[in-house]
């Protein structure tokens, strides 16, 4: 029986695929690998999931019996090879502890979860925004969409009103109010374009390209630092959203360049001539052809986002203090020169992951160039 290895068709080697799998496994199952509670414990009332040690009579414990935040006050700043005050080999700190007695291995595995969260969601946010804006600026350009002036004025008023309300409401409602004008614009564009009535040309290309230039005119790390401090409240989701918002210009720029090439092809004209709408042409004919550079950018973007996040938590900005990440573990090493394990192991994880994603990006790039 021949097994179809899908990952090989996009250029990943078996080693890379296994590395990716192990990383994802650790990240997703971090709560079951690293925990100071009983995974399944017998209490007085019956069996339960994640039972506190004091409440349970007996049960199944995780492989590493420490959470990332568990403080072992008898073993502060002990190395992997030094003598530890533990009751059995099972409770040993295999990679040592930090200055207040938190297990480094537990911190590393918790950090892999945060790294996956950051990498994945920044890539998703940057792809959604980048594809949307890249499509508008590449496919329509400066003259592709003609709106009649009254329509345009009405849309502007709607936009201002909606964004006003989105500023004074919270949560999901605010999001809906923010996104509504864009949806309406998409609807207008999809139905009105192609009819040249000598109306008002909506200069998508100019507007979006200026936006891209403004965002890329300030070095990313500085911009993120400033925005995070203005927001004030440290949270991992703020970091994710801001990194995602800063990375969409790269996607948009590459997609725009691809679209400009593909737009001249004949099959686009034929699709238009049978009355296919622009959005459908883009989704079914343009996007699949432009997908390969986007995949490469995403692979590199994953690495860059993780690097940015760990730099931020190394500086102690943006990520809440209680959250243990790879960067915050290395931060500890700066103040404890004798604790070599604090600097080495978390850094190896960051380096390994960045190396993994960079090499994946290179491999895909290589594969596509050779086709």
């Amino acid at each position, binding site marked *: 029986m021949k097994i179809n290895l899908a990952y090989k068709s996009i250029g990943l080697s078996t080693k890379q695929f296994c590395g990716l799998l192990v990383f994802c496994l650790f990240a997703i199952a971090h709560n079951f690998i690293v925990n100071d509670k009983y995974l399944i414990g017998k209490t007085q009332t019956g069996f339960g999931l994640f039972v506190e040690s004091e409440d349970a009579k007996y049960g199944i414990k995780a492989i590493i019996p420490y959470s990332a935040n568990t403080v072992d006050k008898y073993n502060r700043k002990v190395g992997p090879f030094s003598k530890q005050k533990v009751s059995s080999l099972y409770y040993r700190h295999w990679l040592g502890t930090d200055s207040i007695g938190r297990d480094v291995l537990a911190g590393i595995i918790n950090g892999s979860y945060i790294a996956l969260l950051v990498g994945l969601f920044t890539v998703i946010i940057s792809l959604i925004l980048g594809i949307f804006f890249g499509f508008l600026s590449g496919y329509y350009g400066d003259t592709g969409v003609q709106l009649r002036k009254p329509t345009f004025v009405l849309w502007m008023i709607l936009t201002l*009103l909606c964004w*006003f*309300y989105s500023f*004074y409401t919270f949560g999901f409602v605010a999001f809906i109010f923010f996104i509504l004008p864009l949806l309406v614009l998409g609807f207008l564009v999809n139905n009105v374009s192609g009819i040249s009535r000598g109306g008002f040309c909506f200069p998508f290309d100019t507007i979006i390209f200026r936006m891209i230039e403004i965002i890329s*005119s*300030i*070095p*990313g*790390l*500085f*911009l993120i*630092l*400033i925005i995070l*401090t203005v927001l004030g409240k440290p949270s991992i989701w703020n970091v994710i959203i801001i990194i995602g918002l800063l990375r969409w210009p790269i996607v948009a720029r590459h997609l725009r360049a691809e679209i400009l090439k593909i737009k001249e092809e004949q099959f686009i004209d034929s699709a238009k001539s049978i009355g296919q709408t622009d959005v459908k042409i883009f989704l079914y004919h343009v996007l699949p052809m432009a997908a390969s550079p986007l995949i490469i950018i995403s692979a590199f973007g994953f*690495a860059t986002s993780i*690097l940015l996040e*760990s*730099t931020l938590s*190394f*500086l102690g*900005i943006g990520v809440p203090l209680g959250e243990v990440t790879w*960067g915050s573990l*290395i931060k500890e*090493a*700066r103040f404890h*020169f*004798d604790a*070599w394990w604090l*600097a*080495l192991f978390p*850094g190896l994880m*960051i*380096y390994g992951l*960045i*190396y993994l994603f*960079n090499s994946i990006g290179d491999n895909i790039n290589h594969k596509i160039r050779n086709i």
Partner: protein
Amino acid sequence: MDLRGVDTSIDHDDVYEKIYKELNLDLPNFYFTIQPSHFPKTINQTFDTNKKDLYLKLLNSGYSFVDIEKAINNFSQKLDAAKASNNAADIIELNKVYNLESPEQHNGLAHLNDSKPKSFFWPSFYLNGFNNQYHKWLQSIFTNGFGISILDGMTAILKVKKALTWTLSITLIDFFLSLLFGIFIGTYLATNEKGRWQKTFSQILYFLYSIPVFWFATMMVVYFTTDDYGWWTDWFPSVAIDIYPGKSTFQQILMNAEKFILPILILTLHSLAYITRLVRRSVLDELDKPYALLAFSKGLDKTEVIRKHILKNALIPTITSMASAFANAFAGSLVLEVIFNIPGMGRLLVSSMESADWNVVFCITLLLSFVTIVSFIIADILYAYVNPKIELNAKT
């Protein structure tokens, strides 16, 4: 002394209000304001941050300003009465209002219960004239050197200028060193595909390319600046910059020259990896082109072809990347400054952000975007200079 151990003989509110007005925080934010119609124009004049947050929370819930003012005045009277009688339980209970998500449910604001909150806001628009915070800040750029740092009273531009000298001395040395070695090694790697050091070099470069700067720096500092791991690991001086009072910044940099070795080494190795990869790629691309073959078939030797024909063309794509490499060097030096305690821009930015010293932060941001834009312009001009196909004043 009151219950919290605060000296009550000074009226803190008065001092606070004075500074609040000195920083122009009581003025409206911008030339115009768009806000819901029941919001008051003068919301910024409430200088007590707790009270201002309370106002905004209640206004956002839709209560009219008159009702809120009544309720809060009543609440303040209660709080003052509790403070006067040193009733700790009451003070604690009343202070809880500030931390609530929906403060109208608290007993202290019971007066609000009679009034009905609006569920729908209409926007209102009005002009504020030139007497606003943004205009004052713009003025301060030209008259007052980006305003005054709230930490030490120096003008922001003076602080940034001092820090910039430190940062520039690192970044410029790093930039030229990495450019020099990068072009050299990149060309070597591209032209000696089967050379002895080819594989080792590319692997080391890939390693340096992937390694995070802050981790690399931390490792070097932890392992190679002390003799904790054996007498032979004490390679570099420890990471503190000596400040000599009374000397100019430039003299101080020279006096601390040996402390710069490690940060410059790390930064150079990092950007070297990037530039070498770039140069290698473009030299390889150029070698494939027919004119290179022609040059070889004329009988020119390898070094001459590379020097006279290939390198000129290969550097064109490199120059465009130089601009972003320079901006990246600034970002890279931020982390190194924090690790090595160098009083440069990065550390100034981080420390002034932690203390909400916005004048300095804005000054640095503006300067950085200026540096980036200027480096992009220089790259464009150089691009046209080395590539005669491009004209600067081309008509489109």
